[in-house]
């Protein structure tokens, strides 16, 4: 399942998407260490599979927590996307 975490404002809808089907086979769990803010957690989902999610306490402030990794110019590769060896994490913006 593609789990979308994000927000909507005057300029559009912005999401971090985690493709949890890709998480199932992942043993590295690079997302846990990859995010400087520690926003990711591994949980057991409804299908008894271990998948990544954004922790509850971060879900309503993604806009602010992700801002440090997303400067307007000279944006480096996103650390969470780089750390995810399964290629399960995508940002819409």
């Amino acid at each position, binding site marked *: *399942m*593609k789990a979308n975490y994000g927000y909507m404002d005057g300029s559009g809808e912005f999401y971090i998407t985690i493709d949890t089907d890709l998480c199932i086979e992942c043993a590295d769990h690079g997302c846990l260490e990859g995010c400087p803010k520690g926003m990711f957690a591994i949980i057991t989902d*409804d*299908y*008894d599979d271990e998948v990544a999610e954004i922790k509850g306490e971060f879900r309503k402030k993604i806009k602010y927590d992700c801002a440090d990794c997303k400067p307007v110019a000279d944006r480096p590769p996103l650390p969470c996307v780089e750390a995810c060896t399964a290629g399960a994490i995508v940002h819409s913006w």
Partner: protein
Amino acid sequence: MAEKEFWRWKEYNWHDESTDWNGCDTITAGVDVGSVSSQAVIMVDGKLYAFASTRTGSDSPESAHKAMKWALEDTGMTLDDIHYKVGTGYGRVNVPFADRAITEIACHARGGNHMYGSSVRTILDMGGQDCKAIHCDERGKVTNFLMNDKCAAGTGRGMEVFADLLSVPIEDIGDLSFQVEKEPPPVSSTCVVFAKSEASGLLRKGWPKNKVIAAYCNAMAHRVVSLLERIGVEKDFAITGGIGKNMGVVKRIEGELGIEALKTNSDTQIAGALGGALFGKALLEKSRKK
């Protein structure tokens, strides 16, 4: 004299008298404690054995017990005979006897897959207080979903409000909505409170009840179709939840989408609890293999 409650839908239980559950391998149950109704489903070796559908009270644990007790009635089975119990729905974390809580989105997808067959790809769950458009794969696993805004418009509760306003038993609304010469324009689909005021105005203008009902069914269909269009409708398409029994809304949704929804002889309201019982079976088998 007690006032008649037109919104009150039929609460009932059922069990398969031809099945002997003694000595069977797996007995699992799903309990769906929704915001308006609660259902309990018992499956014996993966086959539907018993269910009950009742109104949710103010106390979720009590509603879960009530639904389960009613499903067990006259079966000779007790709660202890059930090997795995899954709680789902709005009150899933308040099912005291559940071995596991699973979201109603996952349960409706799995229940819908069992009820309508593996060809189902889009399920519209029209619940008492919310509405969800769910995409699933051939195993009934959720691939994507979208929920309605926080509003009773397009939900079972909205229909209950209209049944009371018009003094029409809720089971008759679907049939009555077709008794119009020409389809009226929909009333407000933004909000049930606005729709109710608009309907009161139309009644005062002299509109017959069936025309007002048709206008509301039209509005409800329009509301959920806009939700479905945001996520996209992949064939086959099916409707679960209580409103799935209201042909006045179902037919209008089909008309707007240009797609016919799959039909079933089962009660669409038990899809969530059925999915819970199916999850229970899978989890039980998995735990036995360990």
